[in-house]
């Protein structure tokens, strides 16, 4: 083969290989939504199902599931944040309201965002939230306090071996993010 056509052939093949680069670069980013979808579908990451309709299901009175609450406050967050009750015992299918108390200890208005996580992770898919303060960020003025509501039901399909769930919230300071308008959850 002469030099020219070899050069052309080399150029063509390198171009093809170079096409893989943006593709795999994009794949790296595509892993982000893929991961979310995967977690949502399988409930593997303890992510919560958002279900805007309250339960219209038959309440399964034969069973009781305990839902425990935990809160933690991320570094740099000047609030107190606690559940009003440590746990509730509910029947699957039963709509329940629980309250969380938060108070801004700083002398500046601050925006908080609670991030939920359920354990065991596989049970997350059975915890349906119809209303939650964690759907939106929560602004509080200096010294202000607030009681925030969570409305949920546990779907009756929950396997019988799961008798206790833990719902944990981490509260983050998102004042900066809120100012940048990036507060979607």
């Amino acid at each position, binding site marked *: 083969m002469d030099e020219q056509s070899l050069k052309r052939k080399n150029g063509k093949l390198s171009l093809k290989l170079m096409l893989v680069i943006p593709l795999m670069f994009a794949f790296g980013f595509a892993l*982000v939504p893929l991961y979310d979808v995967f977690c949502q579908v399988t409930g593997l990451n303890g992510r919560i199902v958002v279900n805007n309709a309250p339960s219209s299901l038959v309440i399964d009175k034969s069973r009781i599931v305990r839902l425990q609450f935990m809160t933690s406050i991320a570094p740099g967050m000047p609030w107190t944040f606690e559940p009003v009750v440590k746990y509730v015992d509910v029947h699957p299918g039963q709509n329940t309201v629980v309250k969380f108390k938060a108070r801004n200890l700083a002398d500046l208005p601050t925006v908080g965002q609670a991030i939920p996580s359920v354990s065991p992770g*596989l049970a997350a898919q059975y915890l349906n939230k119809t209303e939650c303060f964690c759907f939106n960020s929560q602004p509080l003025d200096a010294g202000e306090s607030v009681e925030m509501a969570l409305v949920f039901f546990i779907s009756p399909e929950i396997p019988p071996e799961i008798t206790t769930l833990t719902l944990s919230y981490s509260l983050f300071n998102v004042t900066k993010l809120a100012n940048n308008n990036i507060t979607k959850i």
Partner: protein
Amino acid sequence: MNTATTTQGSHDSRGHDSSEHDSGEHHDQNAHDHKPKGIMRWILTTNHKDIGTLYLCFSFLMFLIGGAMAMIIRAELYQPGLQIVEPNFFNQMTTVHGLIMVFGAVMPAFTGLANWMIPMMIGAPDMALPRMNNWSFWILPMAFAILLSSLFMEGGGPNFGWTFYAPLSTTYSPPSTALFVFAIHIMGISSILGAINVVVTIINMRAPGMTYMKMPLFVWTWLITAFLLIAVMPVLAATVTMVLTDKFFGTSFFAAAGGGDPVLFQHIFWFFGHPEVYIMILPSFGIVSAIIPTFSRKKLFGYSSMVYATASIAILSFTVWAHHMFTTGMPVAAELFFMYCTMLISVPTGVKVFNWVATMWRGSLTFETPMLFAIAFIILFTIGGFSGLMLAITPADFQYHDTYFVVAHFHYVLVTGAIFSIMAAAYYWLPKWTGNMYDERLGKIHFWASLISVNVLFFPMHFLGLAGMPRRVPDYALQFADFNQLVSIGGFAFGLSQLIFLVVVVKCARGGEKAPAKPWEGAEGLEWDMPSPAPYHSHTTPPVIK
């Protein structure tokens, strides 16, 4: 194969006036033959041998710099308590040591060997894309200059581990993280360009008759490695880009507060990271598969099974990444999946080890320095494979994870694996590169000093890890003191031993006993058909492949 030699010789005397060259090539040849003298030769060179030499020298320099950092780490860990450096500086040392050894020492050394050897092995006159080759090398020193200079910035250099887990690299990282990201991008571009060059060279430039299944295994393993590089380096680029935007531009890929997930970082990183560790070992397999038959004076046992094993390792390497994440709270099904896939990978690896041993079986073995390093590779890499298998057992990994056991594992596969194979390759091909025999006595001293010290350095780390000593700490509990002292002594000895290698190489480059075309009796391959040192232009007419 003698035909190749004669053609070669006659070409040299003809210079670039050969009538076979059309005008296009003539021009190129012209540029090559009148190589500029001094530094400009090296800056402008597009010759695969020059670029190979540049890569190898650069890699050795990085090996020494990264090694100096390891000496600081081991000096601090010589005793419990904080003696020599601040914890934050200690973290910078572990981080930059890792980054330099992975991206600066091991990977460029392999690329250097590829540049030198692949065209000679497949009967090509040069790499397919010589100008790009020049670029892929010269952006590397830039990248490392940036990375190293970040150590002197306010707030210090990267201190989050070579794995730069978020949020360590986002929320808690120093301002110099931007430089870190930039440097990784450049290193990535360099390796991708290098890999593309290798693939195009191997696919398009083989001499007539050099079928795929006649290619030396070094060429095969590099072809597969190059595909891995092209596939995963862009994912690394995506990861560092996300770190950059999370830290500086308010995105929340890995920040829970904004809806992201720090565990996602680990998934993306290890999707790159695990194939990356195979990028650092597959070319070693190729090197050892060249050296073992030579000094056993036998054909490599199971050539085609070696090719298939390499390919299956490469494919499987995409399915095991989460074995680095067993403790992140994955569901049992995922833990099991990744555990079994990881164990599966050791099957083709075992095939290789078996083939090497079978090659030596009943061979007439001699133990020149390259062979010594290659045999040490087989034994010690296998130890690393076994500790890898232990780590792959999910419930056991809960105990071993983030302890010195992991440090022992990856140093056995990377130092006594990758680095030993690179040393073996250097000794094996030095006569071909320089035209002189290296000092065999010094080479053997280097080998034995390295072999003993490397085991004193890394073997006790297994026990430290099993006893619970965490990795990446500047201080430790008193019960670990004795073993750490031993490890540090091994470390200093290993570091010093590498200076012997420097002496051997410099001596060999300067002169010494003249090397014949084929200094190793049992060697096979086109590179041994040309004189030593290999002429500046080789295979300008394709060799005849038997």
